[in-house]
């Protein structure tokens, strides 16, 4: 049986409690050191399936600006953030663009869309 202890700082509120999570054979066992339940819930999620939003830019042709800021429409698994960003680095879109337009559908087959976060007029 393998036991792993991981230090996880809670980010739910400004207290920023630092606690420890114990995993047994990769399964969540206990969380200690958190002032409230929200902290231990967060820590559990953080060790079992951490998720993050992605914000980045894509290149634009014929736009007022050369870059368009974009964001994921929901969080993606933490370890997919960097691959998704690298995938978007090769994408180019054509102006005009409206906030909320889907720029990349179902990125890396994760069921997450990448959307524009501002309007961008044609040059």
């Amino acid at each position, binding site marked *: 049986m393998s036991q792993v202890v991981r230090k996880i700082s809670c980010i739910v509120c400004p207290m920023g409690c630092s606690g420890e999570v114990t995993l047994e054979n990769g399964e969540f066992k206990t969380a200690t050191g958190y002032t409230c339940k929200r902290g231990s819930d967060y820590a559990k999620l953080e060790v079992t399936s951490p998720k993050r939003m992605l914000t980045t830019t894509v290149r634009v042709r014929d736009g007022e600006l*050369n870059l368009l800021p974009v964001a994921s429409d929901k969080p993606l698994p933490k370890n997919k953030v*960097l691959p998704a960003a690298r995938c978007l680095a090769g994408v180019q879109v054509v102006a005009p663009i409206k906030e909320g337009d889907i720029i990349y559908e179902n990125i890396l087959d994760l069921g997450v869309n990448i959307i524009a976060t501002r309007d961008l007029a044609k040059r």
Partner: protein
Amino acid sequence: MNKQLFDVVIIGGGPAGLAAAHSAKLNGAKKILIIERDRELGGILQQCIHNGFGLHRFQQELTGPGYAQRYIQLVKEHPEIEVLLDTMVLQVNKDKTVIAVNPKQGVFEVQGEAIVFTMGCRERTRGAIRIPGKRPAGVFTAGAAQRMVNMEGYLPGKKIVILGSGDIGLIMARRLTLEGADVQAVLEIMPYSNGLTRNIVQCLDDYNIPLHLAHTIIAIHGQERVTGVTCAKVDANMKPIAGTEFDIECDCVLLSVGLIPENELSEEVGIALDAKTNGPIVDQRRQTSIPGFFAAGNVVHVHDLVDFVSEEGEIAGKYAALFAQSKLPENYRTLHVMAENAIRTVVPQKIALDHVSLDAVRLFMRVGKPEENLMVEVTGAGEKVLASKRLPIAKPGEMIVLEIPIDKFADAGDSIAVTTRQVVKA
């Protein structure tokens, strides 16, 4: 030269200026002008492509450009608000004439009944912190690098060291990593980071970027281009400790060492500044020491939440509009607000009392260093406590807000103090 006349002239089209313009319109101003030196409105928000904006105001997590767009839309709906882009204000005079320049009109003048300063802030540079060494290419401020990466589309370097662990430095560490650069380390001279825990976790820990607390850069190497830095641990007086030096190879150094309110224009008119915030001394209406001149946003004190910037802009815009219409209520007394003990700064620094205003006063404060189990109290004449708030934790990076009903000030004397004391943990 025939100069145009406006009720309210707003200098700077960031979130503070946009909110001020909208609120001036809602409060009766008929002719409002926003002057912005950039090619578009939105200010610093346009380069802050990460999310985390607007949780208070819009109850959703927006990106910087998303938040800006909502306010730009509000402003565009009103023909009373004119916007001049690519236009830089050069000088403002006591008689409220504003001298500006743009490529179309050259140098020109406009006249305001009231002026609102919303110029934001600028970054401290290497000169402000004095790192020895030559001046090779590859040293940038974090904000300049943010603009490069997010708006212009090129990387400041491939191997990066960041000095300063405030939120801008942390956000840039992640941003550059996502763009394919190698962030070697973040160094922080203080024994703690002023950044949010959330940013430390999601911008550094997620990408295994080391954060060296109580460390600084003591030399930058390279002739033409940066080739590396020498770092060292610092003691309690922030002096490098001999024997702790180590080198990091890099081709780029980003400085995220603080922001200073942009107040050259306000100073030239003779507006009194607060030595601690580096911004104008204002009352709760955001009127400065010269009647008819108002200020809001990062020009007053550096904010970390854009929601508060918008709130301040709305206040300044409202009272500037009332001033322009000669409707600003007459003051019968002005109270001074003092920051004491753990509190380093407080805005507004003055409270103007009249016989008609009903608006509660919100005090925005910062502590000088991290504190635990703090009781913040606002006291008036005879040590009477007007308001208090208990904080399990207080960090310099997070603004403390206390709301006080206006009638509480009536018998508070000539000054009130914001003080703190330690309380035992419940």
